[in-house]
């Protein structure tokens, strides 16, 4: 079953220079119990997608379903009971925590707002339980953010997201501000929490090696659109879309024998007034006339979804 589904989801922003099509016609599913990786370079719309799905920003067009129910038009009040079922962890733990609030305060508010606890004792017990799951101790409750290391701050953010027992979490680059040795610890904790609480994740990242290691399926985005979507293993073993191919080939591996061979030329075009037709065409070595004219649809081929004229 799908925990999240979007149908032709669009999010446009108006700017002085024109309309930014940050998310443009995205249809995807997050299956219950899986980790869906969303990768792409800066400006591809992956962060906007995550926030639109949670309705932290209102979609321009399209539909969002949570556990099969249409939540697109729910207002703030009607969304509230859903808020505890779907949550988010942001990239920058410093900006996500209030410097004047202790860890206790941070965890206590969601528990109270959603009426999750009946007594102070129960609240404390719950907090200790969740802090322990994230590798923190009870004594951390009385700490302020500046008394914690970067990794500990991010653990608090994850604990805050988990304490209301959600079913679905958007993880928006949760480890990119952290050192590698800390990153690997956080990833292990996330994996453990996923099993313990039966969670589904949408893991947004620009780090392709990371997504390869932790996701079951993945979505590759380019300029607001999905270019390829399918099982992570399949895509890595045999990428089909020229952008996916080039992107995977650009990633350096922690192995001196494996060198990057064919880096992409050119830069990602501006999402204001993107190229006509296939957005990747100006950088694609196989681009044909049809690519510059028509935008390719996302179609089923090779056991995945691809948006490229070559696979019609």
């Amino acid at each position: 079953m799908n925990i999240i589904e979007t149908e032709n989801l669009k999010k446009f922003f108006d700017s002085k220079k024109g309309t930014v099509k940050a998310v443009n016609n995205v249809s995807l599913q997050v299956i219950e119990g899986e980790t869906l990786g969303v990768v792409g370079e800066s400006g591809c719309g992956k962060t906007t997608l995550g926030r639109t799905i949670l309705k932290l920003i209102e979609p321009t067009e399209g539909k969002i379903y949570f556990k099969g129910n249409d939540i697109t038009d729910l207002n703030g009040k009607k969304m509230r009971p859903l808020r505890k079922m779907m949550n988010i962890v942001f990239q920058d733990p410093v900006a996500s925590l209030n410097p004047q609030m202790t860890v206790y305060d941070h965890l206590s508010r969601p528990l109270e707002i959603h009426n999750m606890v009946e007594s102070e004792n129960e609240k404390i017990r719950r907090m200790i339980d969740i802090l322990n799951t994230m590798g923190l101790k009870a004594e951390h409750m009385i700490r302020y953010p500046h008394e914690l290391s970067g990794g500990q701050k991010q653990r608090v953010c994850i604990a805050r997201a988990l304490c209301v027992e959600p079913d679905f979490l958007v993880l928006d680059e949760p480890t990119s501000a952290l050192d590698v040795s800390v990153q690997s610890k956080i990833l292990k904790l996330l994996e453990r929490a996923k099993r313990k609480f039966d969670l589904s994740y949408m893991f947004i990242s620009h780090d392709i090696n990371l997504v390869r290691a932790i996701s079951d399926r993945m979505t590759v985005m380019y300029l607001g659109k999905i270019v390829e979507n399918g099982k992570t293993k399949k895509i890595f073993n045999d990428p089909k879309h020229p952008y996916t191919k080039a992107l995977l080939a650009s990633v350096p591996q922690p192995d001196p024998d494996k060198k990057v061979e064919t880096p992409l030329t050119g830069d990602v075009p501006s999402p204001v007034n993107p190229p006509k037709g296939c957005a990747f065409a100006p950088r694609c070595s196989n681009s044909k006339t049809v690519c510059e004219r028509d935008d390719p649809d996302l179609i089923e081929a090779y056991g995945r979804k691809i948006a490229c004229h070559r696979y019609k």
Partner: protein
Amino acid sequence: MSLEVKRGEPILVIEDLELEFKTEEGIVEALDGIDLVVKKGEIHGLIGETGCGKSVTSLTILGLLDDNARIRGGHVYYKGEDLLGLSQDDLRKNVRGNEISMIFQNPQSALNPVYTAGEQVKESIVLYQSEDKKEAKKLVLDELDRVKLPDPEDVYEKYPHELSGGMKQRVMIAMMLACNSKLLIADEPTTALDVSIQAQFLRVLKTLQKETDLSILYITHDMAVVSEICDIVTVMYAGQVVETANVNKLFKDPKHPYTIGLIHSVPGVETSIEDFDTIPGTVPRLINPPSGCRFHPRCEHAEEKCKKEKPKLERISSDHEVACHFWEDMK
């Protein structure tokens, strides 16, 4: 700086460098006897996590430290001359730019927003190569072309905000080339860039290294980038050098427990989440750092000796040095 250094000979030699910072909370012992040799024509990676002292090392080389820093001992020899003995004036006239250049993580803050890219590169050309205006412009265009910027004429007229991050970083490299620098210090130059742009940038660096005799000290926290472009790698931990080796040796046969842990923390092609090996504990603060080997509180192999005695950087083969009392026991 007249000494000629041949390819493969040491151009920069750091010996037993000790440095501390005075802060309100106490003395931060930032560098605890660093040894580092960069040879002419090589790309030397300097890797470590936040606060290990890699950036401080590079700032020391160029004399760019803040007032609260104090060098406690050691030497930084560049072409045989100790840079620590030079005045700011000497450094500016004879070292910065024409001998050693540096590029930073954020090219946006390194470029002047009110001058075009071309004008900024021209400044270096006029200083070091040619004062003739017409010729200077031609030389600028040549340098922009060498760093593979598409349409140099166009880039020349652009202001920094009109260029993408990858292009700006390449303008920085063009500036360094215009100075005829022999040693480039690159401090996390691709951290702010996307992977496809990073790949383009690394390729430019690699080509320059092959075509010229440029030496590069490449500072990063990214193990994958190190394996991609470096010839030699030095690993730092909490202000100490723990291991220096040829890049193949470092990845295939690491000897220091910290290097081993670091390599296992990085997701690679065949790793899944269960394979992640993590290093217990966290990086120590450098006010009252651990005694002896600073890694000992997190090391599963640590014994009494590690607490008492700082291990020396020991040569274990022609291109491999390690600072661990028990390196022979590491698999």
